[in-house]
């Protein structure tokens, strides 16, 4: 794995919401606690100076509680949210330098995303939802339907291709979401807390599904979660995020063995205990 090509590399990403947000980046104000920063400047720093690298085929998990900035971070990668500062390189391309058309091309072919609340279009059945990405790429109808059926089969949903989202269970809906992300055969999959809305059994099943697909398809994955068990199960590397910063980045074993501070330790203890 060490010799693998770099799929994603981020350096010094900042995202500050609010007026004149550029001024906050790398200023002493940036170290202020959240509420003080907001009263002083009217700004909220959601992501502060984040850097990391994901090798091709690697699974990078970002773990944090709600409000830690992890969802903002993952949206910065494909510029669904425009970062305030920093560089992002995906497959050798500098993402922040891309023109709108190039950015669309990147999203169409290289980076796909799976969302927490599935984001399925209610007026389309499962098959057409999966075909959506291919449709906007302008593929022919026959082509996109064939490909969508393949992908649906891959996630085990070939039997409900004609069903509509509201006729499917949560787990099935997220499989459709997953199939949609896989349909255009992207290099990178971004998961934004994809299983947090599912019940525990289904969640475990879906995690296994992701692991299986990962083994078969060798995608590069960035996975956001607030569940450390999930992080430990899926990740090659795990980043613990708090108040917009990475507190620790380590392999699962390392993380359990050597928590960097009390905050991480508190998490890890829970996990160890519940796993016993």
């Amino acid at each position, binding site marked *: 794995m060490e010799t693998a090509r770099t799929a994603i590399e981020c350096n010094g990403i900042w995202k500050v919401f609010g007026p004149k947000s550029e001024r906050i980046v790398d200023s002493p104000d940036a170290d202020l606690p959240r509420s003080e920063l907001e009263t002083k400047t009217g700004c909220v720093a959601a992501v502060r100076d984040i850097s990391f690298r994901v090798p091709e085929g690697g699974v990078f998990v970002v773990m944090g509680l709600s409000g830690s900035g992890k969802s903002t971070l993952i949206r910065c990668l*494909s510029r*669904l949210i425009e970062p305030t500062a920093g560089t992002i390189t995906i497959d050798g391309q500098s993402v922040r330098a891309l023109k709108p058309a190039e*950015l*669309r*091309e*990147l*999203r*169409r*072919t290289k*980076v*796909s*995303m799976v*969302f927490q*609340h599935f*984001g399925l*279009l*209610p*007026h*389309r*059945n499962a098959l057409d939802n999966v075909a*959506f*990405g291919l*449709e*906007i*790429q302008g593929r022919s109808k026959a082509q996109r339907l064939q490909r969508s059926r393949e992908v649906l089969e891959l996630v085990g949903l070939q039997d409900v291709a*004609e069903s*509509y989202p509201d006729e499917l269970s949560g787990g099935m809906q997220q499989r459709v979401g997953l199939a*949609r992300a896989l349909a255009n055969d992207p290099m990178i999959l971004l998961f934004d807390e994809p299983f947090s809305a599912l019940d525990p059994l289904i969640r475990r099943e879906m995690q296994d599904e992701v692991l299986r697909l990962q083994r078969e398809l060798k995608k590069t994955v960035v996975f956001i979660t607030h569940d450390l068990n999930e992080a430990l199960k899926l990740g090659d590397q795990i980043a613990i995020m708090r108040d917009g910063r990475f507190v620790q980045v380590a392999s699962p074993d390392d993380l359990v063995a050597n928590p960097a501070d009390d905050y991480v330790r508190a998490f890890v203890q829970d996990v160890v205990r519940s796993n016993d």
Partner: protein
Amino acid sequence: MFVVPNVAIDDRLRAGLRSPKVIGFTVVLCCTLLLRVGFGATQPSWWNFRVAPVVDGFDHWLSLHRGSHWAFRFGFGPMSSALRNAVQWTLNALRFLTWPGLLVTVALTALRVSGARAAIMACGCVFGIGMLGLWDPSLSTIALMAVSVTISVAVGIPVGIYSAHHPKFEAAIKVVLDAMQVMPAYCYLLPCVLLFSIGFAPSVIATILFAAPASIRLTAHGIKGVPPALMEVAEAQGATKHQTLLHVELPVARPSLVLGVNQTINLALGIVVIAALVGSGGAGQNVLDALQHLEVGNAVNAGLAIVAVAFLFDRLSSGRTMKGARAFRATRTQGRSVLEAVSGVAVVVSTVAIAKLAGTTAFPANWSHPISGPIDEFFAWISDNFRTGVPIIGGTKSFSDAITLHVMNPVRDLLVQRAWWMIVVAVVVIAWLSAGSRAAATCGLALMVVAALRASGGDDTIWADTMNTLSQVLIAVTITALIAFPIGIAAGRSPRLFAMLRPLLDTAQVIPAFVYLVPVLGLFSTGRVPGMIASVVYGLPPGIQLTALGIRGVPAAAIEAAESLGCTRWQMLKSVQIPMAWRSILLGLNQTILLIFSVVVIAGLVGAGSLGLDVVYGLTKHELGLGVEAGIAIVALAIVLDRITQGWANTFTRRPAASH
């Protein structure tokens, strides 16, 4: 009437003083007081916009140059002939179809677009039109509607989409849309005649002006209501703006778009009657004739034909329910669609051919049974028995006298006899407490504009007429609310009652307001009362419907929680259902006020006087200036009422929101 919400006035005061918006409010208030101190109780003579002379001059110029000026030769002229031809061709096509052909076409279209139930309903409407004995006039109405509604929607949807994406544009056109809907259609019909000549063309234009705002508004509402999560999905997939619109926004907003079309149809039907004034004929002409000769039966008969046309359009445009649409799509294959289309056309063609051979083109006259007779008898019975001599209440006439003496006169005098600046200050304060400083500034400004209008021609100044109109609206709204509120709550709690009321409410909202005026006129003596009663009758259906919908919209979880705590029915109503439905009830009130307003204006025709009379007087007496000034006053007053009641809806909802 003026419920001053005392919700956290302290907080609002403090927030308000800090807000930069407060400047506008202060400026208006200071100006008013300065004017008062400097110039006494009546408006100073220089505070006069001289709208009327300018408009009159323009009107004269227009009369002289219409036809010869380049704007007419290359703009309005070709446009009006295009519109006229569009309607005429549609009408010719409808006539060519013959009645069996039209019936089959309607049935097949409804079956294809909206399903079997809709097809049966639509056929019922076609039969109904024929049975009422108004086949040919209704065809002309259908043609006029088809063209007007198509253009309204074709304009309304793109503008709605644009305004949903551009908040500044939306804010700018909101004022225009409000004005277009409150302005009595009378106001723009005759100017339309000067620009677009007579017949179908000005009718189409006036209809679009009146009806397109509904389409714009609901489209914008639907597009803005698309969940951000779905927009993000589209963006993450690399969709262009165009693709997002086509594949995500429009399909998701579809119910709202369909509702917009629906509303557009309803509003357009309201114009049908006055469109007949400028020579477009149709079923509206029958209503006008009935009004002219006070034939209640004929008015109702023609009114029902218009309702049937409305339902026909509605059935054809509403489409399937979500479930129906899926079941329908599941059975689709390309071959089948083509086969259906071909056989459909074949059926229509052969029906038309057979009908032509058999010589049945128009609906058979001996099949038609207008209901004018029974309605006339019924109405004669009512007016014989209820006008006078009813025990205790004495009958409609003495009721009308009592209302005039004890309710309408005191309220009118209260408003008319106050100095104008006192009213301005009072309204500004009320608006500020209900809706904040921005609304206060808007309301103050609107009233200052009214104070600057000086056309004379009616009995009173525009200001006095405005206050008179305001008093009528306030009374009508109070009565409507008192009736609609309990019925709406009952209907909201009982699905059966709601289902029973629903067709009644739907029908009542489509009957042109003119139709109500005829019977009401007979029962109540001339004056402000018949107009007020007509506007109450017109305002009740939306009032009831919106209240009921509000109550029904209370989440089941909240009801369940209250039940588990052992709430009685009354406690449930008082502490859960009404507070939670309050916002939508108040928004319903807002809608009802604007509707009532539009009828109070029409009521000028039956002796209610004031602004409605000024508009009619100005336009018929060819004093366009006065008509326009009264129109401006109407819009200003509507803005004031709208801002204040919208403010209530927002203020009152802040309370439950804070307690979550």
